[in-house]
Structures are given as structure tokens and as C-alpha cells.
């Protein structure tokens, strides 16, 4: 039997507004508990929400970037449930009339193929606070604390259609969402701080089957790696279950990264009735065409457009262009290096090669790169003008990574300038030939067809003697002349 996995994602993105969606309190992450919660966030009696216009602007930006319909009249509703980190006893969210309607985006997979994923809708809502359980407290057991700093932080919840068919596709989709929101600057996209969180609806069915299988919802996945692993392990669990004659139950499950398994979260609980109804404290939000068009006109270049431009403007391959445009910071860095050095292809190689490896090794993001874009551009310029060879360039790069200055400073300080003086190279060649009489004799007596291969030995020796600094092309030419003269 061949199984097909069907995945739909619900992605929560915290919007990077200065203040909360319905109050003036700050949204900055990491403050002392309850220092960024005002009377409205605490749901004190008589307080009322006042919408933050910036959150609407961000949501519209997102909708436009997703090629989605914009809800010109959106309505906030109350989702009622009791929990200590939900001060009002309801979450203000959107249901029937969300600000972003149906849309679609293209995702790019590692094998180079593309796929369209449909957006069901995206809506604005407020985040809840956080419950901090006993481990946080030094004294006393069984204590829980509530931090309402996060309560009221604006979120967009992005709901996809069940269009993804593998964990890899789900990750590609999520990366695309991440890419779009960070390009737009509407979220910092920091998954470790919960700025981007994901719930995955996973079901399986026999290939060719039209009807969807019963789904399980895996809650609160907060890294690309966990999402991939969780979906894989959940899909396998469902397949095993069905093949053993069991049935998948619709339920919420939690992914345990340590055990790499999902487990049921709310099996016993009766289905929640959230008793949604339109929030009477907030008027419907009506957006004019002018407002929407103004936002459209101000949209920054988005990943797909940038990718296409990198291909046409810089002559990059589709793969390279895609890799470089996934993150706006990477694209910006590349573009600086490419224009300053005048060598886009070399720039692409270096950014995706040595630089990526360095950042990975040091666990740094490109905005904190130890090698600034201007330095990398200067290095590439020196390769291009033959001041250094590609091999020496790697040495220079390491030095730049250690903060030893730009390429020229390092080359100068370490005396790494390539030797292009004919006399000096002739001397190196003569010395090596003199020191390796036996190999020279072998060369002379060898079959002419085999000679080019044997030249490599001498080139290596000469390069070694020059500490890698001699111009390889000149070595080749001079060596050839000298060897020919010996025949």
C-alpha cells in the first residue's frame, strides 16, 4: 500500500508593532514579568480595547504579499474560554470576516521543483500571556505564575489549505512564510522567542484516495527541524495504526522532541465550545481601496521577485538565486558584495560557501557576520585582479573572520600578494628542476602522452616553494618552456 501524507499548517506570527494590538503597552520581548501589561492587558473592569492601526497595515501587507483577497470589512470576535493567562476570559480574534481572505504562494523544494500552496485565510488576533509553572519559583511547590507581558501582542494566524504532501513541503512552506514576513519587516520571525509558531494538521490516506483522512493537530512546533521530525513521526504513527487495523482519532497532540514522538494532549477533554460572537467593543474595520493601494505601492521587493531579478541581473542559477533570497538579510548582504566587487557569481559562491560555513560554525546570523560585506567584496576584487589566488583567498578570509581587517590589510600584513614577477618564478622553477633530477629524467624518457600528467608534480613543488603565492598560470607557462628546452 502506498500512503500519502496530507498536511495543513496554522502559523502564528507575532507582528513587530511597537505597542499591543488593543493597548499602548510595549511589545518588547524579555522584560521583567508583568512590567509591560497595562490596565487593558490585565482586563481591569471598565477598560476597553482601542485597535492599533499599525497591526492592520501589517496584516494588509501580508495579505498582498500572499496574493490574497483583502477583507475590506473585517470583524473582531470573542473566543470564550477560561485560562489564567487569558485575562478577559476571551481572546479577541477574527472568525467569519478575517482581514486576509484566500490567496496562494509558490514554494520551492530542494529538488528544484515548485508547488503552489493555497492560503485559506489569515486573521488578526491578540496573543495570550504566559503561565510559568513551579520550576520558575525558588520557594514553594505547586505554584504557578502568570506573566501578562505577551498578552495583547498582535498576531496574524495564517491558515493554509491541506495542500502539502510531505514534511519537506511543510518546511518549505513555513520557510516561505518566514521569508515573506521578514522581508515585509512585519515580524522579526524569531522562532526561539515564539515570534513564529506553528500547528500542523496531519492526516494520511491511500494514494489516489480523494477523501481526506482523520487529522491530528500537533501543537506549538517552534523550529523548522521539529516541524519536519514531528510530521514524519506523526504520519508514520497514523500509517502504523491504520495498518494494524486501528483508527486515527481527531485530537490535539504534542510533539516530544526528546523521545521524537507525538502524544495525545486532550484525549479525555470534551470538545471546547468557544461561543464566538462579534466583539461589541470594537467596530468593524473598514478599509478603503485607496488605503490598500497605498500599502501595495509601498511594499518592498518580495523573495520571488528578488529571486527572478538575481537570475536576470546577476546571471545566477535558479538554485543560487533561490538560496540567496530566502532571507532578506542574506539577499541584502549578497547584493552589497556583488555590486561592490563587480563579480556577482564569485560573490554568490563565497556567500553560500565560505561565509555560510563560517556563520554555521560560529552559530551567527548574517546580520552579525564577523566578515562585513565590504570586506568580502574587497577580497573578491583582489581575486579578480590576480593579487591573490583563490587558495590564498581562503587564508585571507579566515584572517578577516578573526577581525584582522579588510582583504588589503590582511594581504599586506601577511605578505600574501601573488608572485607575478617572471624572474622570480623562473628562479623557483629552476630550483625545483635542479632539486628533482630523477623526476626530470623520468619526464624526459616518458611517453609524450603521459608528460602533461607528470607536470603536476613539478607545479605542486613550485607552488609549495612559493608558499602558494606564485601565479599558477605563469608557473605553467614557464615550467612548460623549461621542460621543453630539456627534451
Amino acid at each position: 500500500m502506498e500512503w500519502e501524507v496530507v498536511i495543513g499548517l496554522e502559523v502564528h506570527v507575532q507582528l513587530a508593532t511597537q505597542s499591543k494590538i488593543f493597548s499602548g503597552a510595549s511589545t518588547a520581548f524579555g522584560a521583567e514579568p508583568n512590567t509591560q501589561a497595562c490596565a487593558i492587558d490585565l482586563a481591569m473592569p471598565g477598560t476597553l480595547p482601542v485597535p492599533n492601526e499599525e497591526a492592520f497595515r501589517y496584516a494588509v501587507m501580508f495579505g498582498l504579499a500572499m496574493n490574497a483577497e483583502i477583507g475590506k470589512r473585517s470583524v473582531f470576535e470573542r473566543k470564550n474560554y477560561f485560562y489564567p493567562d487569558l485575562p478577559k476570559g476571551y481572546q479577541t480574534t477574527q472568525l467569519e470576516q478575517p482581514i486576509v481572505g484566500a490567496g496562494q504562494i509558490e514554494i520551492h523544494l530542494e529538488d528544484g521543483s515548485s508547488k503552489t500552496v493555497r492560503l485559506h485565510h489569515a486573521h488578526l488576533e491578540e496573543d495570550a500571556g504566559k503561565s510559568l509553572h513551579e520550576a520558575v519559583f525558588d520557594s514553594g511547590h505547586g505554584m504557578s505564575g502568570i506573566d501578562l507581558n505577551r498578552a495583547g501582542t498582535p498576531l496574524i494566524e495564517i491558515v493554509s489549505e491541506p495542500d502539502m504532501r510531505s514534511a519537506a513541503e511543510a518546511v518549505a512552506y513555513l520557510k516561505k512564510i518566514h521569508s515573506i514576513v521578514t522581508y515585509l519587516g512585519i515580524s522579526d520571525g524569531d522562532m526561539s522567542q515564539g515570534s513564529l509558531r506553528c500547528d500542523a494538521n496531519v492526516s494520511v490516506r491511500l494514494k489516489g484516495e480523494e477523501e481526506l483522512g482523520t487529522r491530528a493537530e500537533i501543537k506549538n512546533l517552534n523550529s523548522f527541524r521539529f516541524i519536519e521530525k514531528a510530521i514524519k513521526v506523526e504520519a508514520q504513527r497514523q500509517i502504523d495504526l491504520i495498518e494494524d487495523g486501528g483508527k486515527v482519532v481527531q485530537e490535539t497532540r504534542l510533539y516530544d522532541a526528546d523521545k521524537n514522538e507525538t502524544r495525545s494532549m486532550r484525549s479525555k477533554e470534551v470538545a471546547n465550545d468557544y461561543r464566538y460572537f462579534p466583539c461589541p467593543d470594537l467596530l468593524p474595520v473598514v478599509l478603503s481601496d485607496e488605503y490598500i493601494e497605498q500599502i501595495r505601492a509601498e511594499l518592498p521587493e518580495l523573495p520571488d521577485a528578488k529571486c527572478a531579478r538575481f537570475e536576470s541581473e546577476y546571471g545566477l542559477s535558479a538554485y543560487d538565486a533561490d538560496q540567496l533570497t530566502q532571507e532578506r538579510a542574506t539577499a541584502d548582504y549578497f547584493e552589497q558584495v556583488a555590486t561592490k566587487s563587480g563579480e556577482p557569481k564569485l560573490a554568490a559562491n563565497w556567500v553560500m560557501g565560505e561565509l555560510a560555513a563560517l556563520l554555521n560554525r560560529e552559530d551567527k546570523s548574517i546580520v552579525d557576520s564577523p566578515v562585513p560585506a565590504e570586506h568580502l567584496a574587497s577580497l573578491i576584487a583582489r581575486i579578480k585582479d590576480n593579487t591573490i589566488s583563490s587558495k590564498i583567498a581562503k587564508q585571507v578570509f579566515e584572517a578577516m573572520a578573526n577581525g584582522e581587517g579588510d582583504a588589503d590589510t590582511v594581504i599586506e600584513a601577511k605578505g600574501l600578494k601573488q608572485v607575478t614577477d617572471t624572474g622570480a618564478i623562473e628562479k623557483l622553477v629552476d630550483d625545483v628542476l635542479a632539486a628533482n633530477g630523477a623526476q626530470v629524467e623520468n619526464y624526459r624518457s616518458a611517453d609524450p602522452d603521459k608528460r602533461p600528467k607528470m607536470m603536476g608534480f613539478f607545479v605542486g613543488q613550485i607552488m609549495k616553494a612559493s608558499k602558494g603565492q606564485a601565479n599558477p598560470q605563469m608557473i605553467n607557462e614557464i615550467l612548460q618552456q623549461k621542460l621543453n628546452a630539456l627534451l
Partner: protein
Amino acid sequence: MHQLTIAEIIRGLRDRQFSSVEITSHLLERIQQLDSQFNSFITVTGEQAIQQAAAADARLAQGNAPALCGVPIAHKDIFCTNGVRTSCASKMLDNFVPPYDATVVDNFLQAGAVSLGKTNMDEFAMGSSNESSYYGAVKNPWDVERIPGGSSGGSAAAVAAQLVPATTASDTGGSIRQPAAMTGTTGLKPTYGRVSRWGMIAFASSLDQGGPIARTAEDAALMLSVMAGPDTKDSTCLDRPTQDYTANLNESISGLKIGVPSEYFGEGLDSEVGARVQEALKEYEKLGAELVEISLPHSKLAVPAYYVIAPAEASANLSRFDGVRYGYRCENPADLRDLYMRSRGEGFGEEVKRRILVGSYALSAGYYDAYYNKAQQVRRLIKQDFVDAFQKVDVIMGPTAPNPAFKLGEKNADPVAMYLEDIYTIATNLAGLPGMSIPCGFAHGLPVGLQLIGNYLDEARMLNIAHQFQQASDWHQKIAPAAQ
């Protein structure tokens, strides 16, 4: 001094006939002597009132005093007062001291008014008799065996008993107008959104509206001029500038077209109440008005629609009272569920719990369309009735309530009978229209209220129409026996 209207107090203070400290002390003394009979105050802020009065006197002496400088008033205990307990007449908030003022409270502070304290009310403004207060029932100064109406029963009784010349109040389904009718006072519920709801503890957000209870239309106009205005802290507050509602009081009402809805004079209306209202309408004819019979065909659906929408909104509005952050918390909760169930079970009274249950039911899956959605459809029809009527008439008049004040405890066993007390007032809340009640005589020895319903934002005209009646009648000047 306690018989003075606000207009008279303003003149007296400016003419140095008395000081704010003098009238404030006099009223505080009166409250202390008399209010045990009425129970109209939950909290009396005597010391603070004297301080405010002294500050007002200083400003009056400087000659640049604001509108109500030195005038004593009191706030319904639904309005949050910075540093002063705001209980909403509930055990749930018996210990709650807000760190902020409601916009209405702040407006009166800016206007220089002196607050004597917080008036009693039905718990969370849910009731028509002021019997559901955690602090005990309020008694009607016209007959202390009877209810003063609700939910703003304390605000109305305090004015009728001449403990304070005017009070703030709130009206979700008749909570200003019905107690005004029961106590022979003048009450005004403005157009929805004219007065900020910030800091006014929510019962049903789409219906709640603050307004004044006073002894005359002129005083109501003075109060409303301070209360009404835009507020960026309330998204539903209308973005219209403040205005002087006294400006049009003396305009002639000759040629005024008064709509008289046949539905407001049918079954259930006490015949004596009906007779007083008809007499008042005749008086208006004498003043040059024309009576036009109109129909509000969906009137009978107002009460059932209201008792779906208001409890539905309340069920969510009251979820914040969970024992976690402020207010009542049960002793030694075993776990979270126990904390919620007992804090709310013990902290809320019967009527509040009844409405939370009704509202939760109306919103629950499978019933939402049949109840909440249907009620919203009815609401639109009721609004349309009024829109159609105001094509033909300038103002609508009828009784405020079907009966005069009933006896304490009389309708406690029958919630529906209690709900029907608001049969004539509820529709204006559903439509968002302004409504008033002014005294128009007595039935069975008890005050009767004439209700005025105006078009949207027509408060100035309504006050003019009410004032003209009060210039031609003296019902509003009758003094409750217990106040003498």
C-alpha cells in the same frame, strides 16, 4: 439648600450666597441622617468631597471656575473612581479599588464637580428593582416599602430624597429611565456612543450608555454637557465635539410632531399610568405640539431579543471576574477549576448567574443561529421601525414603565414579570436611540414617568421638549415624603 437644583447651585456659588464646602457638608450630613432609610449610597466619600469642595471654593474665588465648579454630585458605583472602591454592587468587587477614573468621572473632575460618593445599584446593573445589590435593596423615597426601580435605583433615590441634586447613572435596557419614572426624577439615556464607556464596568457593551439623573431637564442638560463628548479610549464613542445642551432649552416647541406609538398603550399598562401619560400629551398639545399616531410593529419582540443579546454580551464581559487578578477569590482553592467555580459561584449573585447562564446558552454551538443571530435580526427590524417613524415625527412619547413602583420582593420570584418592567424602554437601547423620562403626575400616589424617545443625537431637542413641559407643569417639583 438641599432643594436647590444644579442651575440654582451654580448661581448661588458664583453669587457667594454659600460656599461649596457649605452645601457639600450639608448634603453629607443629610446623607448620614437620612440614607439609612433608602440605602442609596454604597460608599460615601465625605473627606474627599470636602477637600474637593474646598479646592472648588478656591477656584471660584479666583474667578476662572469651570462649568460645575463646586457642584455636588454622586456617581453610580458602575463608574470606576481612582482610589475609591468601585463595587458594581457585587461581592465580586467588594474589595476592588481602581487605579484609574472612568472618562465620565474624569470629565466631572475637570468640570470642578464634587463627588459625594458612589450610589447603589443592581448587581452589575442587572435588574429593574435595585434588589439584586450585594449591599442590600434601595428603597423608594416616595414609599420606603417600594422599589426605586433599577438598575440605577441608588442614583434615582438619592436625587428624589434630595441627598444630592444630580447623579450619574447608566442605562442598558431602561436603567436610567425606569428608576427616574419610579422616583419622580428626570433621567436621560443618550444616543449610544455619545458618552464614553471607558471605566464604566460593562454589562452589555452594545447597549450600555451612561447618562444623568437629575430633578429637572435643565439640570440634566448641564450634566450631559459635561458627560458627553469624544473619547479616544472608547472605540464605540462617537467622534463629535462636546456641546452646550442648555443652549436650546427655551426654544418654542410649537409645531412639534409627537409620535404616539399604539403599541405602548396596550395590554399590561396600568390604566392610571396610561391616563397620566395621556394628560401629559394633552399638555404638549396646549404647548403647540401635534400628536401623530404611529406604529412600532416590532415592539413586542424587543424584550425577548434584549434578553438574548444583553446576557450573551454579559456572559463574556463578566468572564474577567475569575478570582485570578483582582476581586473576590474563594478560600483555599483546591485547583484551578475549583478556583474558578467557587470564586464565581460565591462572588456573583443569583440574577447575575442567571444571565451568564442564559447568555452562554444563547451563544453555544447549535443554538447561536436560533437565538443570538435571530435576536440580532430582530434588533435591526426594531431599529428600522424607529427610522421609519422618525420620517414622520420629531419625537416619540409614551409611558416609561407600565406600572408605578411595586413593593420590595413583589416580583423576585418571577424574573419574567421583572423583565417586562422594561418593556417600553428596551427598544431604544436596541436601536441606540436617546430616551428620557420626566415626571408627569401620580398613579396610586406614586410618580409616573413620561418617556421621550428622540432621533439619533437629538438630545438637545429632547431636553428642550422636556424643559418646556417642566416650565408648564410642576410634577418635577413634587417632593417625596421621606425627603421632607
